[in-house]
C-alpha cells in the first residue's frame, strides 16, 4: 500500500494520505476554511520534507476552494470585483512570499519562521475566536441580550484615496485596504502553505464590514487565485510541488469537504466558531512549542544546495 512520491522522494502509505486529505477536507467543509494550517504539520509528521509539504498542499487548497466558490457563486455569494482586487494583491504577496521562503530556506531558518508564524497567527486568531464565541454562548445561556455592536467602520478607511464602489459587498471604500489584505494573505500562503482564510474572513467582516453573505465566497475566490499562483511559483522556483502527493490529498479532500459542508448546517454558528477556535489555538501552540522545548536532536539537516 506504499507509494513512492517522485518529488518528496519518500515512500508513504497512500490510503493513510487519502484519509488525511478526507479528514482535513471534512474539517474545511464543516467550518468553511481551507484547512491548510492543519495539513502541513501532519504531513511533516508523516515524514514528508516541510518544503514539499507546504508547496504541495497549496494545490489541495486550490481544489477545495474551487468547489466552494462554485457553490457560493450559484447563491450570488461572491463579489468578484473586490475579490479581484484582493487577488491582485495576493499575487504580489505570493511573489514576495515565495522569494522570502526561498531565502529563509537557504539560510536554514525556514522552519523557525514557519513555527513563529503559526504561533503568532494561529495563536492570536484562535484565542480571539474562542473568547468571542464563548462570550456569546454564555450570554445565550444566561439569557442576556448582547450589547449593541458599534457598526461603524474605522474612520481611516475613508481617509484613503482611490475610492471605489463595490455594490455586492455594499461598500464604497478605498482600494488600498483590500490590496493590503491580499498582499498579506499571499505572503502567508507562501510561507505557511495556507489559504489565509482564517485571517481574511475576520478582516473582511470586522474591518471592512462587508455584507456577511458575500464574505466567505469572496475570500475563497481570492484564495484560489493566490494559492494557484503560489503553486506555480513554488513549482517554478523551488521545484517542491509533488503532484502525486497533492492528487492523493485532494481526491480525499474533495470527498471529505462535501460531507463536512452537509453536516455544518446542524450546529449553531457560535459553537462552530468555538470548536474551530480551539483547533486553531491547539495547532498554533503545538507548532510554537518547538521554540521553547529542548529538542531531542540539536542538529538538523537544512535543505538547499542540491535540491
Amino acid at each position, binding site marked *: 500500500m506504499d507509494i513512492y512520491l517522485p518529488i518528496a522522494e519518500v515512500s508513504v502509505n497512500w490510503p493513510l494520505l487519502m484519509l488525511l486529505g478526507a479528514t482535513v477536507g471534512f474539517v474545511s467543509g464543516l467550518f468553511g476554511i481551507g484547512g491548510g494550517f492543519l495539513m502541513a504539520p501532519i504531513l511533516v509528521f508523516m515524514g514528508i520534507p516541510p518544503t514539499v509539504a507546504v508547496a504541495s498542499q497549496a494545490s489541495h487548497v486550490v481544489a477545495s476552494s474551487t468547489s466552494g466558490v462554485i457553490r457560493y457563486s450559484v447563491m450570488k455569494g461572491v463579489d468578484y470585483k473586490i475579490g479581484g482586487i484582493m487577488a491582485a494583491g495576493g499575487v504580489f504577496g505570493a511573489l514576495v512570499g515565495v522569494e522570502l521562503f526561498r531565502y529563509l530556506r537557504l539560510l536554514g531558518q525556514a522552519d523557525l519562521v514557519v513555527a513563529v508564524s503559526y504561533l503568532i497567527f494561529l495563536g492570536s486568531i484562535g484565542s480571539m475566536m474562542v473568547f468571542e464565541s464563548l462570550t456569546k454562548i454564555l450570554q445565550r445561556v444566561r439569557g442576556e441580550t448582547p450589547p449593541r455592536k458599534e457598526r461603524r467602520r474605522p474612520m481611516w478607511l475613508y481617509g484613503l484615496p482611490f475610492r471605489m464602489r463595490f455594490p455586492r459587498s455594499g461598500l464604497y471604500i478605498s482600494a488600498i485596504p483590500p490590496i493590503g489584505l491580499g498582499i498579506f494573505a499571499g505572503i502567508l500562503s507562501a510561507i505557511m502553505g495556507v489559504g489565509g482564510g482564517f485571517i481574511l474572513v475576520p478582516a473582511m467582516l470586522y474591518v471592512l464590514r462587508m455584507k456577511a453573505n458575500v464574505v466567505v465566497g469572496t475570500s475563497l475566490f481570492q484564495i484560489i487565485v493566490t494559492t494557484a499562483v503560489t503553486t506555480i511559483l513554488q513549482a517554478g522556483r523551488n521545484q517542491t*510541488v509533488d503532484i502525486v502527493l497533492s492528487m492523493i490529498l485532494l481526491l480525499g479532500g474533495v470527498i471529505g469537504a462535501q460531507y463536512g459542508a452537509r453536516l455544518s448546517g446542524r450546529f449553531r454558528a457560535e459553537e462552530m466558531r468555538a470548536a474551530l477556535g480551539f483547533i486553531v489555538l491547539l495547532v498554533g501552540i503545538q507548532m510554537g512549542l*518547538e*521554540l521553547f522545548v529542548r529538542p531531542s536532536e540539536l542538529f538538523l539537516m*537544512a535543505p538547499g544546495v542540491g535540491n
Partner: protein
Amino acid sequence: MFQDLPPPPPAYEAPAPEQTVATASEVRVAAALTDAQIKVDTGFSGASIVLYGAVFNPTDVPADVVLVVRGPDATVRLVKKTRHNGVWLNSRPVVFEGAPGFYMTASTRPLPDVADFGQMRRLGVGVDHLRINAPEEATTVTRYGVRDVVISRLGEDYLDWRRAVIRLKETAGLYKNNPDGVSFVDRGLFRAEVDLPATAPTGTYFAEVWLFQEGAPVSVSNLTLTVEKVGLERSIYQFAHRNPWMYGILCVFLAAGIGYAASRIFRDR
C-alpha cells in the same frame, strides 16, 4: 587544532595486490551482485540486493571479508539549534563536503577486529573514516543571492558536528555498519545483503569487497550499482525539473478541475 581530521585522500588502488594474473597460489576475492540496476518506480519502498562472492584461498590463513557500498556524494548543510533567551533558534548552516548520500559496511567480524585503526583509515573503510570535511577557512559563498558562510570557528565543536552528520544519516537509514553482515555459506563462498531505504539517493554506487588476512588487505574486488528512477516517477521528476513552470500550471489546472468535478458530482445529492 584540526588534528582529528582524517588524513589526505587514501590511495585506494595502492594496497590492492596484483590481481590481474590469477595463479593458483594467489589469495583472491571475486564478487557479483544479484541486481546491479535498482529501478525506482511508483511501488518503490527500498530495495534489498544480495551480493555473492568467492574467496580463492589456497592457504590456511583465516580471511575476513569487508563489504563497503558508497552512494553518490551529497553536500550536507547542517544547522544546530541553540538557545537564546529561552528560545531555540537555528545557527547559520555549516556545509560539509564529501559526505556520501549512502554508506554501508558489512563484514564477517566487527571492523576493529578485522584490521587496526590506521589501516582502516588509510583505506577509508568505516563510517568513522569517511572524509566528511568542512573547509578549515571561513569561506563565504553566495548561492541564489544568499550569503552562505560555509564554515567558521567550528574549532572544538568540529567533532560534534561531524558526529551529528553521521548520526542523522544513520537515523535516516542511509549509513549502516553491520559487523556480521557478511556470512560464509560454504568454504570460500560468502554472501551479504545490501539494503537500500526508499530515501536512498539516485545515481551510481560503488561497492568494494575487501579481503583481509592477519589485519592486512590482500585483495579487493570493485563493483558498481546504479539506482535510477524509471517509468512514471522518472517522467514526473524530469518534467518537474526541466519544465517547472508548465508543471506548476498543470498542477493548478488538475486541482481546479478536480474541485469543479467534485462540486458537479455532489451537487444534487
